[in-house]
């Protein structure tokens, strides 16, 4: 029986060619012989889109990766397969994939424990320490997979540095940037009835402030002859743009209705303050957590112009809303 591919004369009764392995029973086999076809739309899209260039780029990237892998392998830094590379994103995942379940559990457990602890204490020294350890566990898990075969100390050090760099750029720097926007830790510097010095609060810089929310503000140093002695302070938004506000004898009225809202430190408020309408893009906040100095006489109640000047905050002066307390752990929880 002659092979249709290589013309080798095989013994009768064989299913595959002894030389090239081709199927010898093809003539009678049930096979679809109609080739797949591109639709008119597919062909048109391929003509219009930079399909060829995109393919070339894809193949060039693949070839570049293969060349880099060869180079690194020769230099003693083996580069694993893409399937393993992807699993480096989660500590221990690559170990599970390679069948090293015990190591995988160890790395994943250590990472989750340290990372969870770091998140719980986010913003504090202990939190930073735990998060640093979590990152190092992640890097160790990667290095453990990279050096499954023996390697010198220099190779390990260089690889460790490179892995930290790649993990930092790929995961931790972007994640850190995002975390400091959504949960920026702020340490309270002075004691107030609401906050104690040393407490760590989380600030969401992307949240839109609304009446009642605690906000972190950056006031101007001087407003209308008043000097504000603070870089940033935390206080409550009492009214939003367009509201008519009256603060009288410790009671807030918004649009003529009494409001339950009050500043963080009600003892340091003016006696009377009236704003016919909060301007657009401004918020009404009485800064009671800062030391305010000015050339007015408190006994004669001259405060209104000065308070008026410092109580209206432009939206861009508000850094974010304060929503969570992480330290001390005894007071851990959301803020209202």
């Amino acid at each position: 029986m002659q092979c249709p591919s290589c013309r080798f004369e095989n013994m009768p009764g064989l299913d595959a060619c002894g030389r090239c392995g081709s199927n010898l029973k093809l003539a009678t086999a049930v096979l679809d012989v109609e080739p797949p076809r591109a639709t008119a739309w597919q062909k048109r899209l391929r003509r219009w889109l930079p399909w060829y260039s995109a393919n070339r780029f894809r193949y060039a990237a693949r070839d570049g990766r293969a060349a880099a892998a060869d180079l690194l392998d020769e230099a003693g830094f083996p580069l694993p397969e893409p399937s393993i590379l992807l699993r480096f994103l989660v500590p221990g995942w690559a170990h599970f994939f390679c069948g090293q379940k015990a190591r995988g559990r160890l790395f994943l457990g250590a990472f989750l424990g340290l990372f969870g602890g770091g998140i719980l204490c986010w913003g504090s020294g202990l939190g930073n320490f735990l998060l640093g350890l979590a990152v190092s566990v992640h890097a160790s898990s990667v290095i453990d997979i990279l050096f499954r075969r023996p390697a010198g100390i220099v190779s390990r050090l260089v690889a460790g540095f490179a892995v930290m760099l790649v993990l930092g750029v790929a995961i931790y720097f972007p994640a850190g940037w995002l975390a400091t926007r959504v949960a920026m830790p702020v340490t309270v510097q002075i004691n107030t009835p609401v906050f104690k010095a040393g407490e760590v609060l989380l600030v969401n810089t992307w949240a839109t402030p609304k009446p009642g929310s605690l906000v972190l503000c950056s006031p101007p140093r001087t407003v209308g002859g008043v000097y504000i002695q603070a870089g940033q302070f935390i206080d409550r938004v009492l009214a939003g743009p367009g509201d008519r506000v009256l603060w009288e004898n410790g009671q807030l009225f918004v649009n003529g209705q009494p409001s339950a809202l009050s500043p963080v430190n009600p003892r340091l408020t003016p006696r009377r303050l009236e704003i016919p309408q909060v301007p657009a893009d401004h918020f009404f906040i009485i800064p009671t957590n800062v030391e305010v100095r000015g050339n007015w006489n408190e006994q004669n109640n001259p405060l209104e112009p000065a308070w008026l000047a410092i109580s209206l905050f432009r939206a861009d002066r508000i850094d974010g809303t304060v929503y969570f307390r992480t330290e001390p752990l005894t007071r851990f929880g959301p803020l209202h």
Partner: protein
Amino acid sequence: MSRFDNLEFEESEVRRTPEPQSELERDEHYWLKLADDNRRSGFHENALRYYSRALEVDKSIVSGWLGQVQMLIALDEYPEADLWGKKALELFRENGDLLAGRAQALIRMGDQRGAGELCDAAMQRAGPSAYPWLVRGEIMVAGRETIDHHCFDKAVALAQDWLTPLEIARIYLHYKRPSQAVAWAGKAVAKAPEQPYAWYVKGSCELNLNLETTARQSFKRCLELVPNHSDAQRRLTELTVRPWSVGRILGRLLGR
């Protein structure tokens, strides 16, 4: 080179295609012959269909599978050609021509490395076939290497058919090198002046070079040989109603 290539027969005898008397006589060879005729006329869609008909009769014909892959490439369906080449290679492992077919599909998709590897494998296995050399030349053209003509010369030496220089011309045309394409198309026309497809490809090359007069002559010659050649007719109409273009006028002035 086949031993009987240079034997002389009477013209009528050579041209005559034996018409099958019944459905039973329409065997795989009949369909393959039909596919080859259509391919040589530039009707790749029809050729693809006839290759499929041949394979329906006998799936063990390697040339049928190879023809399908080559027709898919000619129809600009490269991913499909690659896929079909893979399937064919599952049936005929390590067949040199099929490896070369896949290599050609890959190089058309831009995978130079994959194509090179497959072509190397094809060269080791193909034997005296011209097709791997053709694909090797195409890989060199795609890689802008200067020794592509050696591969094409080798291909032409192995297959002294007029279709080989024409395929080379089409390769150059695909990579937008009409000046080299026109030379190969000229060789094909010199070998087989009675083939309308050769004249058509030559005309296309000349059109790419803005040689309107000669392109018109080539298309007219093609239409003289086959009066209902729709592609040549369309090209000739395009030439006649071609809009005014600064680039073309500059090209003419510069002698392109």
